[in-house]
């Protein structure tokens, strides 16, 4: 496997690293994989997660690119007036353009953690070249089943009632504080309404994109069971092209080495769908009240 340091985009402002698989594994069947920044972290990803994923995928025959969006990591800021959200989509498209021009790729998988997942999704919605997504701790929406699983056990304990009263007061102030912060922080994570996401997700699936959605225990404020995913989008016809995994023991950034390896194994297993094997559906649920 070869790693190449690259710069591309307008004015070569975007910096990244390409993993080229060994010659005997290189294939023009598999899409190239591109990882997008998680939050403000550089292209190596949290605890070098993207480095590990790129190297593992390259060992399986995938060309991979991890790069820094404009203004993050090693990359220069964009020199246009695009708002941040639009700018990251353009950066991702420039990454795909670079791989297309340099290696001849016509199809891509985009992936990332948190905002990296969000931006992968947004780019996929706008660019037909995207045939797959690896969404780690992506958008999540509470469902009735979430509340039942979250609060049910707590209703039987006295202490949480008292703490809940205090939290209720703080919760009244929080939306106002967060709204104010969003007005000044271009990097704040915007989560669209579920109905809007469902419509866009359906369009992705209708063009036969394959998706891997992994949620961790770090998202437990919003997500707490693997079956919750399809309940979040009740009208979705996934056609068997979404694999959902819930790893409640893993923290949001996968700081534990064994959990990170578990994630790598998951991604590698899922990636075989691009070798012609069908993607499995989400795991059968154990008892899941509500949804």
């Amino acid at each position, binding site marked *: 496997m070869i*790693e190449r*340091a690259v710069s591309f985009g307008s004015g070569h402002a975007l910096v990244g690293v390409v993993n080229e698989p060994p010659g005997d594994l290189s294939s023009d069947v598999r899409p190239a994989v591109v990882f997008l920044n998680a939050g403000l*972290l550089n292209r190596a990803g*949290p*605890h*070098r997660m993207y*480095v590990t994923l790129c190297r593992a995928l390259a060992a399986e025959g995938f060309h991979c690119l991890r790069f820094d969006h404009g203004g993050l990591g090693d990359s220069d800021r964009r020199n246009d007036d695009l708002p941040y959200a639009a700018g990251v989509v353009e950066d991702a498209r420039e990454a795909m353009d670079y791989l297309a021009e340099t290696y001849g790729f016509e199809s891509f998988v985009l992936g990332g953690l948190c905002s990296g997942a969000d931006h992968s999704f947004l780019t996929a919605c706008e660019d037909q070249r995207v045939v797959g997504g690896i969404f780690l701790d992506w958008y999540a929406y509470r469902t009735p089943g979430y509340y039942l699983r979250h609060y049910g056990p707590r209703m039987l304990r006295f202490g949480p009632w008292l703490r809940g009263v205090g939290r209720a007061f703080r919760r009244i102030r929080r939306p106002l504080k967060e709204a104010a912060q969003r007005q000044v922080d271009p990097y704040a994570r915007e989560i669209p309404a579920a109905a809007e996401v469902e419509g866009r997700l359906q369009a992705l699936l209708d063009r036969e994109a394959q998706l891997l959605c992994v949620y961790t225990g770090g998202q437990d404020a919003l997500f707490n069971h693997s079956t919750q995913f399809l309940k979040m989008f009740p009208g979705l016809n996934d056609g068997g092209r979404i694999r959902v995994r819930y790893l409640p023991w893993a923290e949001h950034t996968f700081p534990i*080495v064994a959990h990170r390896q578990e994630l790598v194994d998951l991604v590698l297993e899922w990636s075989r769908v691009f070798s012609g094997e069908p993607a499995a559906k989400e795991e059968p649920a154990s008892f899941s009240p509500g949804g």
Partner: protein
Amino acid sequence: MIPMYFGEKDRPLFGVYHHPEKGVGAHAVLIACPVGHEYVRVHRMVRNLAVDLSRKGFPTFRFDFTGTGDSHGEADQGNLDVWRRDLVLAAEELKDTSGCREITVVGIRLGATVAAMVERYPCPVESIILWDPVLEGKSHIEELTRQHRAWLGDPQENGGPTELLGSAISPVLLQELRELTLQSMPLTSEVPFVLAASQDLSQGGALVDRLKGHGNPIESLLVSDKYGWEDPQAVETLIMAPNMVKKLMERIGAA
């Protein structure tokens, strides 16, 4: 700005070379980053520092040690010995790429420790700037363990942690750190040092005494900031350190 891989073919290191935007670049700057989670905390700041230095006319090179960032190897393949070799390779790359006549080495945290321990650099060294160096390895492990425990639970396994704050740690590095003390660590000879200390550094005075005793000229840059290197609440916060960066620019510019 030129991102590149350099060094040995089977153990490539990632680095970024910033060419000088004015002047002939006879005096270059080599930046040795921290490792582990501290690397992430300072990454953008280091990049911006390198850009600013290059704008002032200094060829600047920053790189990732083995097992960090985009360089080869897993985290547990890195140790002080390996990293000293990496730093020498980076200095050679900087010398060859820029044609410089002398370098200033800026080391941050464990990067500073490694920079201070290089026996001989491949080119004349104007000074080695140590920004909050790790001086007592045993207490450093204890602090990382404390932060890990506060965030993720007990990392202890069979007599020593195998991972800390997201990075695997090798028994070799653990042993090196356990043996690392201010009084016993080898020091680069016949080179001026600069201690760049925040309020986080507790042994600055002792370091100055040790360096003077070793025959190294030493000066100090002090800032009143705290970066929370050992604060469990600050593990995932980014550091931009404008005051320290300003002092570094002034010191290097005056050299």
